[in-house]
């Protein structure tokens, strides 16, 4: 187990460096750069822009800039945002709560409903329920989330007035109820796609298990169908789901780009879009590393959990 962990750590470190090099290069290849937004200001002279480039270290050769960034990163210094002068880790931390709240609740909804639909679809294969679930999943997967979001806002908030048209809370009212009220629509919209994904995976995982010999044995032993399903089928079908859940970790913390914009949700997804728009290199790099680390971590955790719960698998 220890050897396995050390190996994985080692591989992950190399992977992260490669990711950072690619990210840094691509980021700097985008024309414009952090000073482009100031270049259009009629009062900003070329001398002003040159001075800023010098002060921000942007006039150094790219490899030098990268190595500087990497060395600082290794010492735990994630840099400082160009936009608001706040340390990158603090910027991330400021947006993390909003994203956790939204993604956490939508993922919880998605897993609960998705798992249930998946199992029922598998046990009642080719039933009307199964067909409608399949079609529903296809529709949910093929229609973009922002469309669901805008329609949701139009119907439930502008027309019916049941829920707010976005925002995380009403300014001046930060009660838990107010947060929950604002959470309803975006978390449902966001979970639509995830329900579809989870139900499809769960359905096929259940089908894989449902005709296995040990299930037949369980039935032959005279167990009730319910007991067979809960103890033998679902337990085993959930195993591949652990890996899926591990892979969801970065997206749970990384936020939803589109949904957060449509619902004016001040989370990580919008932070990424905004930072990209302003070429806020330190924050974009920070977010990239953050989600890369989460991806690595999510997979690692999933592997360990699978190995722990599935006696057939041993890591080493």
């Amino acid at each position: 187990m220890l050897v396995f962990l050390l190996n994985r750590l080692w591989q992950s470190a190399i992977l992260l460096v490669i990711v950072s090099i690619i990210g840094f290069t691509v980021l700097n290849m985008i024309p414009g750069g952090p000073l482009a937004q100031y270049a259009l200001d009629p009062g900003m002279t070329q001398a002003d822009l040159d001075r800023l480039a010098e002060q921000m270290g942007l006039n150094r050769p790219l490899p030098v800039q990268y190595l500087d960034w990497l060395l600082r990163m290794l010492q735990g210094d994630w840099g400082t945002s160009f936009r608001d002068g706040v340390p990158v880790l603090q910027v991330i931390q400021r947006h993390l709560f909003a994203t956790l709240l939204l993604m956490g609740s939508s993922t919880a909804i998605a897993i609960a409903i998705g798992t249930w639909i998946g199992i029922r679809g598998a046990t009642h294969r080719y039933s009307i329920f199964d067909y409608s679930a399949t079609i529903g999943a296809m529709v949910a997967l093929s229609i973009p989330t922002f469309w669901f979001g805008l329609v949701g806002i139009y119907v439930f908030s502008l027309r019916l007035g049941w829920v707010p048209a976005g925002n995380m809370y009403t300014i001046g009212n930060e009660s838990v109820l107010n947060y929950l009220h604002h959470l309803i629509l975006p978390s449902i919209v966001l979970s639509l796609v995830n329900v579809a994904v989870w139900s499809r995976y769960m359905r096929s995982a259940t089908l894989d298990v449902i005709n296995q010999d040990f299930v037949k044995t369980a039935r032959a032993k005279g167990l009730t169908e319910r007991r067979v399903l809960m103890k033998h089928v679902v337990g085993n079908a959930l195993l591949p789901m652990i890996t899926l859940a591990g892979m969801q970790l970065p997206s749970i913390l990384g936020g939803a780009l589109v949904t957060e914009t449509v619902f004016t949700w001040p989370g990580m997804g919008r932070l990424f879009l905004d930072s990209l728009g302003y070429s806020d290199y330190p924050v974009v790099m920070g977010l990239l590393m953050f989600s890369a680390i989460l991806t690595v971590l999510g997979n690692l955790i999933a592997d360990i959990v699978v190995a722990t719960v599935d006696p057939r698998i041993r890591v080493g």
Partner: protein
Amino acid sequence: MADRKTTNKISRRSALGLMGAAGTAGFLAPNLLGKPAFGATPPDAPTGRIIVGLSQEPTNFNPLMVKIEVDDGVHFSMFDALFRVMPDGEIVPNLAVEVPSQANGGISEDGLEWRVKLRDDVTWHDGAPFTAEDVKFTLELIVNPEFRSWRTAGHTLVREITVVSPTEITWRMEEPFSPYLSFLTETFIVPKHVLEAEADPNTAAFNQAPIGTGAFKWGNRTAGDHISLTANPDYFGEGPYVEQLVFKYIPDVTVLYTQFKSGDVDLLGRMYITPDNYAEAVTLPNRVVKLEPASSVETIYLNLERPVFKELAVREAIYAAIDKELIIEALYYGLPEPVETFMPRTSAYVHTDLPRHEFNLDRARQLLDEAGWVPGADGIRAKDGVRLAFVNSTTSGNHLREQLQQFVQQSLREIGVEMTIENLPAAVIWGDFWTQSQFDSVVVGITYLIGPDPDVTNRFHSSAIIAQGGRGSNNSQYKNARVDELLEEGSSTFDTERRREIYMEVQELVRADLPFLPLFSDNSIRAWKTGIEGVEHNGNTRTETWNAAKWYWAT
């Protein structure tokens, strides 16, 4: 938040403003028509909250650091400059007690020695008194080579700053530079006693929780969501009348408008309402919707070093072949106003009697015929082996401009001119392609002035051509000796009347020379909830919240 109670009363000022808008745009917010324009008065103590919706997020709270327009809203509400520029262009005292001039002795006859007298009743938000030391500190910080400051033009000319007394400061200018007065209306004074103690002004704690002298104090910020300011009861000027001023960031313009409709936002800031929503917006109940002139001018901007554009007749012919009115009507919902000059319509220096553009294809053909441009076999004119063909570019993805291009392209074909459209992404077109004059022609909206001053040396002086080794933004490579002369005089003259004459003549010369084809100046669609009083457009600033101190809810 629930809608505020509707009121039938609007202030005299907003009524006059509306009439003004009706004059230029021919439109009145229907819900205000025919209602009495008197009666609303500000409350005795600050009450209520106004939420301003913005489609960009203010992130810079140190008013001296490099910033974009949207940051100005917070700065104007929290800080004061020595002077303030009013909507009519008049510069009035703010932290100073009078505006220095050669007449009152504040500026020496040679324009080099400046003396500014300051108020003695101003305190910082932390209670410390404001003095001339703060002004000195501010002016020195701007040119500190380590500091990531915003515009330094003008400030770099300042020498020998001397604090004569806590309420008086003097300095010497390296050369006479009259626009500096208006630059000082955008130079917010920061507290020496707070920033002096900081090791690095770029990362100072002050930048995240600033202390100013303004009508509002720093409240709190939820990054990516909103900034909340609270009333400063000790403000030395008029107001504030609302307890809380909130800048709410809503990243998408459609969502911004939706939240204005739903009532979450009380007043719309940048980017306001998009033209396609205007027709619906004016029908919204309990909302004031108003057209206000934007300071940028939409142009077809030409590179005068290109052989085809060297001849004035060609530029005139192309201008005559553009059907401005139809473009405005058909593409821009009839909202913009056709213009003939670069000077913003809101500037006190705008020339309103320039020759009016006339769409006339026959006249265009005649001009080209007379100049010796003869149609070739392909129908495109040529002269001395030069085909009358050029490329036009603009930001790709800007659909309105793309349609405008196709419109112009068709008209030009009718007079034997070939215009090819090659659009580029924003980051590419406004990089070297633009600054180094690598284009033939571009469709671009430009704000020609730096702040409220009419000086345009940066745009039209022959020494401002980067492609020819100069410094500035004269990207059309325009050269006119008389314009150079006038611009030099204009930026060193403090006599307002003389300056007026100078900039009128500059506008006449530029209109005649057509280094760009002026199309129109846009109207931005401003809107707020009925009941908010005191909102006034000031085209000499970059923000709608320049006078938020005077806003209040009518009760």
